[in-house]
Structure formats: structure tokens, C-alpha cells
């Protein structure tokens, strides 16, 4: 039952990153590459039409995590207090940028909210990557000092950084060399994803240029992934064990590399959506291989005193998970139906769609 809900939550999270990922990415592209007003409008539109429906997946993932793994929810949310609050603020800023840009015709008004939208998208992509990096690296569970836990074994609190930015110490901060690399990888991944989304959904004048940009970013992504794998090996020598034990899990890293390598052929793609499919595979593969590598751990401990948090020691007690099964399955089916209906309704390029509510 724990495993079932873990998979459901992982799928919902992955869908959130794939969906909201493209509008984060569109924001990043908007910030650096959109110069003409027409392009700015249409790129803002590719995010503005969809962001709120995409963030619903975030809310659902949070709700399900709360329901199925309340102790984990409590531990992680309070432990990562500062970065989560910053993520919330960035999400609010981004929404403001998108919703208010088109309200007045003054150039400076538009410029202001364009920058707010772009910068908050960039920082969000970075912060989500850093967050994932933190979960992979692990934290000082129980805030152990001199062999003694200051809190219950599953509670902790992370400062934003430590003086040496090293991931290898027992009490790292939110930002260290490893998590920053993951953050950069996240920015590159989502920027590529967003650029592909723009190519897929618009007729903007920069589409051809974006293909070269994607190619270059993809080189950095490829190299960055290899560097991070090397880092990861230093952090945790067993990180590949799950894949040796259960070789079918290898499908996840394969997805990731198919996505990255396929992306190199961006200029040869005949259809506008091919690139988007490959970047979707990259995100899907990246998240699933990370979770598969850690499994069943969902937050490693960086000290020898307190054990790792796993889906088994974090799951809700009693019959709650079985009780939730009935409505959970109905809910998942409904969510899938809504998503498909919405996709159908918004198919095609967004250039001519009615924007702004």
C-alpha cells in the first residue's frame, strides 16, 4: 500500500514538473531570448494560458503526500522551511508577472512584469533543482551534534548554506556544490523543455534560433549530468545498487539519456513537437531514476545516529491508506480526464488564442 501511494505521488510530481516545467522554461527563454514585442507576448501566452492548471498538480501532489506520508510531510516541510517559503514567494511573483503584464499598454509596465516573470521562472527552476539535490544528498536528521540528537530522529532544520559549501559534511546547508549543480541542471533541463514548448505551440520569430540554443544548452546538460553523477557517487557509493538488483529499473536512466541524446538531433526534427517529447523524457527519466536509485529511502540521513527516512517508516499508520484507495482511484481517473479534455481544447498554436481573463 505504501508502494502504491508512493508511485502515485511520484507520477503526480513528475507530471507537475513536465507541465509546469515548460512554463518555467518558457519564462527562462522569455528572459534571455525574447526581444521583439510580438515574441514576448506569444511566449508569455504559452505560459499564461496554462500555468494555473499546471500548478493544480502541485497542490494535489502536496495533498497526497500529506495524506499518505504525514510524518515525512511534517519533517521535510519544516526542515526545508526557508527554501520552501522562497519558492512560494517566487510562485506568487511569477503569477503576478503573468497575470498583470497585459493589463495596461504602457511599455514600462510590460517590461517590469516581463522581468518579474522571467526572473522568478529562472529562480524557481533553480530552487526546485536545489531541492531535489537536497533530497538526494540527505540531511543531518535529528540535528545531531556530538553524537546526540537535538530533536526527534526525523526532524531537522537546514540553514541556507554553510561556510564551506561542501556536500560531504554531516550537516550541510541547502546550497552546496552538489545541490547547486543539480539546480543548474534543472535550469538547463527546463529551459530546453520550455524552448521546445515554444517551438511546439507558437509561430514566434525566434523558433529557428531556439533550436541552436537548445543544442548548446543540451551539451551543457549532458556534461553537467555526468559531473553530477560523479558527485553523487562520492556522496553515496551504493547509488547504483537498486539498478543491479532490479535491472528493469534501468528503464528510467535509459529514458533520461534517450531524452538528452535525442535532443541533439533537434535541427533534423520534422514535426514541431518531437523536441518536446524528448525533453519530456528527460524530465520523466531524471525524476524517476533519482527516486529509483534512492528507493525505498526518501530522505537519506547524513549521520550515523538516526536512520534514513523511507516510505515504510514514514507512511501513515492505521487503515488510512486503504480507506483513501477508493476515492484516490476515482480522483486519478478524473484528473486524467480533465487533463485530456483540456489538452484537446488547447491543441494547436497559441498565437491566435484568446488570452487573458
Amino acid at each position: 500500500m505504501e508502494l502504491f501511494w508512493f508511485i502515485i505521488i511520484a507520477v503526480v510530481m513528475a507530471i507537475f514538473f513536465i507541465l509546469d516545467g515548460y512554463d518555467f522554461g518558457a519564462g527562462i527563454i522569455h528572459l534571455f531570448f525574447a526581444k521583439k514585442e510580438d515574441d514576448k507576448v506569444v511566449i508569455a501566452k504559452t505560459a499564461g494560458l496554462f500555468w494555473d492548471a499546471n500548478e493544480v498538480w502541485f497542490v494535489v501532489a502536496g495533498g497526497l503526500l500529506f495524506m499518505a506520508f504525514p510524518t515525512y510531510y511534517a519533517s521535510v516541510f519544516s526542515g526545508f522551511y526557508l527554501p520552501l517559503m522562497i519558492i512560494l514567494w517566487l510562485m506568487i511573483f511569477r503569477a503576478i508577472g503573468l497575470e498583470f503584464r497585459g493589463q495596461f499598454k504602457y511599455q514600462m509596465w510590460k517590461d517590469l512584469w516581463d522581468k518579474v516573470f522571467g526572473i522568478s521562472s529562472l529562480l524557481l527552476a533553480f530552487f526546485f533543482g536545489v531541492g531535489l539535490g537536497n533530497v538526494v544528498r540527505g540531511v543531518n536528521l535529528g540535528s545531531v551534534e556530538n553524537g546526540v540528537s537535538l530533536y526527534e530522529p526525523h526532524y531537522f532544520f537546514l540553514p541556507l548554506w554553510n561556510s564551506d559549501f561542501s556536500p560531504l559534511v554531516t550537516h550541510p546547508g541547502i546550497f552546496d556544490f552538489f545541490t547547486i549543480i543539480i539546480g543548474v541542471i534543472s535550469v538547463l533541463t527546463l529551459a530546453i523543455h520550455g524552448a521546445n514548448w515554444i517551438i511546439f505551440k507558437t509561430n514566434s520569430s525566434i523558433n529557428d534560433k531556439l533550436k541552436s540554443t537548445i543544442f548548446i544548452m543540451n551539451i551543457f546538460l549532458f556534461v553537467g549530468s555526468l559531473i553530477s553523477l560523479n558527485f553523487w557517487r562520492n556522496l553515496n557509493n551504493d547509488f547504483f545498487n537498486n539498478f543491479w538488483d532490479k535491472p528493469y529499473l534501468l528503464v528510467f536512466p535509459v529514458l533520461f539519456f534517450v531524452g538528452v541524446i535525442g535532443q541533439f538531433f533537434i535541427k533534423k526534427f520534422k514535426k514541431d513537437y518531437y523536441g518536446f517529447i524528448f525533453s519530456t523524457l528527460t524530465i520523466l527519466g531524471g525524476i524517476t531514476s533519482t527516486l529509483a536509485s534512492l528507493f525505498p529511502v526518501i530522505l537519506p540521513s547524513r549521520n550515523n545516529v538516526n536512520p534514513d527516512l523511507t516510505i515504510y517508516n514514514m507512511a501513515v499508520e492505521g487503515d488510512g491508506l486503504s480507506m483513501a484507495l477508493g476515492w484516490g482511484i476515482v480522483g486519478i481517473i478524473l484528473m486524467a480526464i480533465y487533463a485530456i479534455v483540456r489538452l484537446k481544447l488547447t491543441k494547436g498554436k497559441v498565437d491566435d488564442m484568446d488570452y487573458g481573463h
Partner: protein
Amino acid sequence: MEDIIFYDRIQFAFTITFHYIFPQLTMGLSLLIVFFKWKFLRSKIEKYNNAAKFLMKIFAINFTMGVITGIPMEFQFGTNWAKFSELTGGIIGQTLAMEGMFSFFLESSFLALFIFGEKLMGQKLHFLTGLLVFIGSWASGYLILATNSWMQHPVGFEILENGKYVLNNFSELFGNPWLLPSFLHNQMASMVTSSFVVASIGAFYILRGKQVEYGKMFLKTGVIFGLISANLVAFPTGDWNAKNVVKYQPAAFAAMEGIFETEEAGSEIVLVGQPNMVEKKLDNKIAVPNVLSFLTYQNWNKQIKGMDEFSKEELPTNIPGLYYSYHIMVGLGTIFIGLMTFAAFLLWRKKLFTNKAILWSIMSIVPLTYIANLAGWYTAELGRQPYLVYGYLKTVDGVSPTVSSGNTLFTLLGFIGLYILLGLLFLLLVGKTINDGPTSKAH
């Protein structure tokens, strides 16, 4: 401040107060939108359709604000109230997850369809999407109220040896005697806000002399819905809630009503007065003898327990705050009934559209409906103190063990700054939309 949880409580109170400005409008407004769309389907008069679409624009702005201020609410259960989440997540996690999965998803998907899909779907399906938005938003309210009701009056659970609360009866969670009265009361209060907003927009259009035709339509509809909901919010729904409070939280009831000392026979009802916590009495009191006993028990002489009957641990922590919230809610509710009754009388006598004094009153009273709604929620939440789960889990025991109050103050200041900006932009955008009016083709 006396306690370590001060900033956590203020942050939650501040962010939920700001958040609830938006859903309280959208829940009621969705019903009015369905009403206008239905009128259009029956009459085929285009202005009803324009009215529905115009109100949906206002709905959408509020919905967006509700989404971006709602995510911090979900987060704060984990970030600031970690111990509470850990202990009771097995129960309130169910209702909150269902809220996201069913109602929030329904609302956001069909809102988009309503806005973008009119031509594609045809009028009947367009009506249906509006109806689904309404169902989604009310279901959302229902599930949030189910969560809150469990905290006010916990049922269907057991406590394990390790202190965790687990659900052992799913249907009891939704059959909670606290739930239905508070849901209906809350929805009627939401109807008050939205009817008053619609009436106020109408009064504004009539007074400024532009789009007067729409103004009359909005005013008429707003007044009729406002009259009905302002009455229903007091009786029977408010009455049911009060009876629940007497039954399940008698200490909170005594504090709400400002009864410091138990009276020999029937209890008086306090209309005005300021709690004096030093001398344990009300200053400048105006009260009517025996009425409270009659309202509560339909018996003029039945005794009601005063605060002197309860120990300090059982009493709410902020007695004056609770007393004022309750009296502000009731006082404003009474004013709303009076104003709408008078307006409905003028409507019947066909004098409403020309009476400037009443038009100005209706236009200006809108902020008070928001205050009344929030005061109602303050009454419920302050009355629950000092508990998170009434009678079982103290608020002080639910806070995150590792988040220091310095960090919470930092994020509280951040939220205050950000929400002031957000509030200003919201007013700008809503003001612009209302100013453009239903005939505007601009986006």
C-alpha cells in the same frame, strides 16, 4: 510575547485571512453566474449571457488570487505546524487531499473551459461548465469545512500509543454533526458577500450613468439574492451553529456572548459592551434580560454557563478578541438584513433605481460583508483555542519543533510585504474590469 508560537499563529492568521478574501467571493459568485447563464438559456436575451461572462471575469481574477494565496496555506501545515501534521495527517490529510484532487481540479479545469470554450461547445455545454465550476467551488468549501469541523469537534478516530491520530471511521468524518451547519452557514455568508458585490456593481453603474441597463439587472439580482442569503445566514444556519457551540464548546460560547458570571435563571443577551478582563465584567453594557436563554434553548429561564464555571485551561486564550469577532459578525449581519429588506421594499415599490441614498449605501457597504465573513471565521477559530483539535491537542503542541520564531518572523514579514503588493494589484485589476463593464470587448 508570552509564547513561542506567537509568530506562527500570526502568520497563519494573516495568510488565511488574506486568502479567504477570494474564495468567499468565488463560491457565491459561481452560483450567480450559473443563474445568469440559466436566465440566458431560457430567455435567449444576450445581456444575461454578457452578465454571466462578465462576472466570470471577476471570478477568474479572484480564483487566480485564491490559488496563489492558497498554496501557502497547504504548505504551512507542514512548514509551521509540523507536529500537528505528523500527528493528525492521517485524518485531515484525507480531506485536504480530496479537496485538491476533486474540487480544485474540477474548478480550475472547467473555469478554463467556460472562459475559452463558449463557441466550441455551444450554449448548453457552456452552461454545464459553469455549473461544474459552481459544484467544484462548493465541494472545495465542503472539504475544507470537513477538515475544520474535525478540528472543532473531532470524530471517527482513535489515538495510538505513540500519540498519532488515525481514522477508523471514514463516514463519521463526513457525518460530523458540526459539519453540515457550519458548511451551510459558511456558504450563505459567501452568498451574502457575492450578492452584495453584484448589487454594488449595479448601484455603481446606475449612479455613474453608464451601462445603466446592466446596472439595474445586477442591482435587482443582487438585492434579491442578498435578502435571501442575509436572512438564511442568521436563521436557521447561524442558529444551528450557535447551538453546536453551546453543546460542544460551552466555554467558547460563554466567551463569545460575554457572560462572565452565570446568572441564576435565564441569561441576558449582550448587544454592546467592552470586556474588562481585570474586573471580569463588561463595561458600558447594554443587554436584554433572558433573551439568550430563549434563543439557545427556547426557554426564557434556562441557565447558561458563564466563564466562571470553567477553569483557565478550558477557556479560550483571547476572550476579548473572540467576543468582538462574534459581536461584529452578528451586528453587521443585522445591518445587512435591514439594508436588503429596505432595498427589496423599494424594488417592489419600483423606487430602488432612483433612490440615491440607498444606491450609495449598497455600493459602499461591500467591505463590511468581507469583514463579517472574516469575523465569523475568527469567532470559530478563536473559540477553538487553546486547542488545535478541540479537547485533545493543544495549539502549542502542534508547532514545528525545529523552526525558530526568528525564521517565522522573517517569513511573516515577507508575506506581509508581498500581500500588500498583491492586494494593491488585485484592486487595480478588479477596479479596471468593473470600470470597463460587461459590454467591454477588451481583455
